[in-house]
């Protein structure tokens, strides 16, 4: 765990035509900590995640990863920097099986140089490593050869998160990872997040559920209509505090400063 923050996004702005989705938003993610990103629908949470994960290019602002500035211009670039994302709409591919999804666009090849050139898949190795990864994360899937489309919503979610977790050595961004999950599955996701945190990963968690924030998060950053309206230590905050920030009733980051 280095002293530099895992990720600093500073002064991020992004607009879509007339709509200012993000206005001068700054956020810091630290190794071994879970940061909640809160806000009402349309507050800009997903937009911020997409700016960090390379799907959107911010109009203004700078992003530092492990202290070094980067212009993250594609999701591939973000992954190379150790940033893994689980987007709100799952990024799993239904017709591919579990192992293929876990290794999508990071496939192992066999057959030496030629095999690597033409992309000859080493399916056996990917399945073995996939099984090991899922076991380490305590994710149980009936069969790795099953297509993801045939799994339940919770299992699909587990695969999506498992992939981010498996590869996200530094920074993992989770956009509503427990949406539409049952109680037990949600608990598993929270366990995964804690597991990651304990391994020194910097985690950003978007959620609408305050109980989850209080349960696993260290800090919370609250967006209100595209601006950051609060940044609080979760330890000292109550559910009501968080909700009042989200609804815009209170602010710690208002114009006159804190």
């Amino acid at each position, binding site marked *: 765990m280095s002293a530099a923050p895992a990720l600093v996004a500073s002064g991020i702005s992004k607009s879509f035509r007339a709509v200012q989705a993000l206005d001068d938003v700054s956020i810091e993610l630290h190794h071994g900590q879970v940061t909640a990103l809160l806000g009402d629908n349309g507050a800009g949470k997903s937009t911020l995640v997409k700016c960090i994960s390379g799907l959107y290019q911010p109009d203004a602002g700078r992003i530092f990863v492990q202290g070094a500035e980067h212009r993250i211009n594609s999701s591939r670039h973000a992954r190379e920097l150790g940033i893994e994302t689980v987007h709100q*709409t799952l990024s799993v591919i239904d017709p591919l099986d579990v192992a293929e999804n876990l290794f999508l666009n990071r496939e192992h090849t066999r057959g030496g140089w030629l095999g690597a050139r033409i992309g000859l898949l080493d399916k056996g190795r990917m399945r073995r490593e996939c099984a090991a990864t899922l076991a380490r994360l305590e994710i149980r899937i009936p*069969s790795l050869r099953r*297509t993801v489309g045939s799994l339940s919503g919770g299992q699909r979610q587990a695969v999506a998160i498992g992939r981010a977790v498996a590869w996200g050595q530094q920074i993992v961004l989770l956009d509503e990872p427990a949406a539409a999950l049952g109680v037990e599955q949600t608990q598993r996701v929270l366990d995964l997040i804690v597991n990651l945190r304990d391994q020194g990963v910097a985690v950003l968690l978007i959620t609408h559920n305050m109980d989850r924030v209080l349960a696993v998060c260290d800090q919370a950053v609250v967006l209100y209509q595209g601006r950051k309206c609060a940044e609080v230590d979760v330890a000292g905050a109550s559910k009501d505090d968080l909700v009042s920030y989200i609804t815009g009733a209170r602010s710690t980051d208002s114009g006159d400063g804190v």
Partner: protein
Amino acid sequence: MIRKSISEKASADLPSPVEALIDRYRHNGGLRQYVVYLAFVLILATFSVILHDDGFLSSSNLLNIGRQAAPIAVMAVGMAFALAAGEIDLSVGSVVALSSLVAAEIVGNHGFLAGTLAALGASALVGLVNGLITVKVRIPSFLVTLGMLGIISGIARNWNDLRSLPIRNDRFSGIFGAGGLGPVSSLLIWTIVVGALGHIALHHLRWGRHVLSTGADRDAANAVGINTARVRISALVVSAAAAGFAGVLLAGRLSIGRHDLGEDYLLTVIAAVVIGGTNLFGGRASILGAVTGALIMAMLNNGLILMGLEVADQLIARGVIIILAVALSMREAKEG
């Protein structure tokens, strides 16, 4: 804590190989995956019985069916990739003609190899243009390739004023269509080669997985860093190149290049691919199914003629059977 129960589950035994196989069968589509093979056997059996006296099963007739199926099968393999990627290629029929004409033109003056490569190259180039316009100008491939169908058909018609170009090159004709290895027709060999290459590309190459991913969910594929623009272009190149190879096979068998070769193949090819279990809207493909679908189409064509049906009745019967087969192969897809 909850964690305990999770680790208990995680340590549960893995299912046995047989259980795993059954599990995969049930959850990866069940019977739907095999509808095309059942249909093949069913149609083959039906024709074998009712057309027994008409020589349906005679070796010459079976050879005939195979000959008809070969170019359809080769095109179907290519089309399966275009559909799998979420695109469609309506220009394939015209590319067959273009390829045959290019081959005829070049083989005569520059020999067998140059002619073949030129025909395949010209076809792939058409696919590249299709793909670039689709991706860069953001026009659905349906419209781009529809326009290209007209353009290439026109070029083919102008090529030699609607007359066919003869190919006088025994090597070319022998290797592509007329000859064979011993009793095995070269058309059959090429069909198997193309089918095997397609199957390997779809299931065992990174590219094939990326084609499927792009067709299933382009945004998700983008999000994991797949260059979906390049994947879509490449799928259309493969589709056109396969059509070009079908053109070479036809040119080899008939020893001519002509503007109307492949003209009426488009719908037959699409029907073959879709009957074979490939999703018309991307994300699911079967190469073996596409080849089998091509065999079914050729068999239907042949059987209905042997039955003595009028052309009009043939069209009706074929249409009904195709709709039935597609309905069967898609019905369960919705559940999967």
